């Protein structure tokens, strides 16, 4: 008789290594929440966890896509293109980003409650594969909490607890969260599928080891989670949906509250431009292929004026519409030899700061609604709104609507 030994492939060897049982910790360490039956609520079930997981996954996907879009608009790679119309598009996407982020807080809380007993699984790691899976879940939970906590602190403008630059950290961690989420979904997909396809009359597979009827029903919990998400949404959405503003008792902004009935994110005092903005010798320098032009405020005012109804849409999720009037940017571009293919670097009187300048891409630079604005709601711009003049363009984040304009440089992308 000839014996043949089958060679195992390297993926099989890796798989075997990862699934080799680890030595369990001593049984006497199994105390407190690690004990069998430590968690008594029978409301916890795979079905509940799966339902919450699907809703949470969808919410995180919406936040990730809208957040990624906002990042790309502010830091466009070469391949990225963003239109100037419709004028309200960024207002909607960023409003959705913040509103969804707020609404998912009760979902996340309920989900983490529903899977809490799994934190105390015994043994903590059956094998290396199990240990890696648990580590990936730790990353998922940590990054999800990080996004929610930093997001709320950002819209509350409380940066002291954040010893890092919020925008960058929130962006890196978004990729970490979405990566960990995809891994988690990949691993749990068969479990989710089985739990959701279970016949309604089949008892749900319980996570908690308890036969004690729970005080909370699954339907009651899901209803409460949805209602809480609804309450938080109505309480805050008025910062961007004007007709809700009277109900939004927790909104970080009221759209009509501020100088000239428009909120402000950065004051002239905070930007340290008060003196330069009020200087009678102020000139707006425009540099282009055909030369350099310096225009005083009176000269800008003497040019043909145009009106635009455009929103300021902040990255923090609030937005408000206003009537702006001033000189069309494309008129200034043509004055220095630019054309419809030109882009414009707009620089502020601010000496320093991440957002002291912005690049106006060709679709926005040539759009007739894009203005170097001198007036707001019929009155001269206040200092805090960018006096002597500011940029206002359709479908752009508020942080890129450069205030206290000092210089425009026209060139090719």
């Amino acid at each position, binding site marked *: 008789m000839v014996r043949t030994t089958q060679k195992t492939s390297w993926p099989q060897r890796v798989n075997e290594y990862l699934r080799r049982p680890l030595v369990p910790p001593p049984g006497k360490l199994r105390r407190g929440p690690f004990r069998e039956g430590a968690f008594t609520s029978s409301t916890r079930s795979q079905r509940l966890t799966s339902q919450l997981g699907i809703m949470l996954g969808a919410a995180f996907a919406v936040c990730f896509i809208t957040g990624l879009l906002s990042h790309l608009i502010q830091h466009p790679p070469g391949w990225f293109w963003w239109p100037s119309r419709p004028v309200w598009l960024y207002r909607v996407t960023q409003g959705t980003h913040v509103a969804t982020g707020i609404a998912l807080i009760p979902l996340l809380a309920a989900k983490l409650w529903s899977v809490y007993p799994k934190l105390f699984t015994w043994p903590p790691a059956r094998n290396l594969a199990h240990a890696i899976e648990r580590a990936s879940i730790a990353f998922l939970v940590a990054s999800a909490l990080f996004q929610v906590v930093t997001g709320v602190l950002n819209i509350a403008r409380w940066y002291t607890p954040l010893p890092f630059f919020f925008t960058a950290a929130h962006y890196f961690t978004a990729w970490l969260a979405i990566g960990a989420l995809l891994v988690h979904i*990949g691993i749990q997909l068969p479990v989710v599928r089985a739990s959701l396809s279970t016949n309604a009359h089949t008892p749900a597979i319980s996570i908690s080891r308890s036969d004690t009827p729970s005080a909370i029903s699954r339907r009651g919990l899901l209803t409460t989670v949805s*209602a809480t998400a609804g309450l938080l949404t109505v309480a805050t959405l008025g910062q961007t949906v004007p007709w809700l503003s009277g109900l939004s008792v927790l909104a970080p902004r009221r759209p009509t509250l501020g100088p000239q009935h428009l909120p402000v994110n950065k004051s002239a005092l905070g930007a340290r431009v008060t003196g330069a903005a009020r200087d009678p010798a102020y000139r707006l320098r425009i540099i282009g292929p055909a030369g350099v032009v310096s225009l005083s405020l009176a000269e800008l005012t003497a040019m043909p004026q145009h009106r635009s109804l455009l929103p300021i849409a902040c990255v923090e999720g609030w937005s408000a519409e206003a009537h702006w009037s001033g000189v069309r940017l494309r008129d200034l571009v043509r004055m220095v030899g630019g054309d419809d293919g030109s882009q414009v670097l707009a620089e502020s009187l601010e000496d320093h700061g991440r957002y002291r300048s912005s690049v106006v891409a060709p679709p926005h630079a040539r759009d007739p609604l894009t203005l170097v604005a001198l007036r707001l709601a019929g009155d001269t711009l206040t200092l805090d709104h960018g006096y002597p003049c500011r940029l206002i363009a359709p479908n752009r984040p508020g942080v890129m609507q450069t205030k206290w304009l000092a210089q425009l440089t026209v060139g090719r992308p």
Partner: protein
Amino acid sequence: MKTIQRALITLGVLASAYAVYLAVRSPDFRPSRQIPFLAVALIAHDGLLLPGAIVLAASLGRFIAPAYRGTVYLALFASLVVTLFALPFALGHGRRTDIPSALPLNYTRGLLICLGLVWAAAILAVTIRARGARRHRQTAAAPAHIAPAEDCPAGPENATNSDQAER
């Protein structure tokens, strides 16, 4: 199914790796601050907040009638979530005197209004359930209808099948 699982896991690992790549290449990355923040968020939630909420609910549950316990637990859940969200606004540390249009509202009042709505909904739910239970008890305790004598005179010719069966 296996193919989808492998694709999701692969994409997830790539996205996570991209996160690390972005972070290490960025001049704004502060590992000594961001990584501890991630860890603190996880430990604070799993080690303090969630077990604290579970213990609090279990402790309060002893003083609440079983029929109302579920509603109270759910109202406590909603209250905790709303309070944690509103707290940074109510504390007002993000306000600046030069930007009065940022955080212009009375957020403590706003929080109390939201909590009032939560508990009003809880009281309403309990009231509706109590009325339903009372109606159910009344229906179960009500005697069977007895027809007046002139409508249904007793006699063998009026005996029902069930009466004959009992005999």
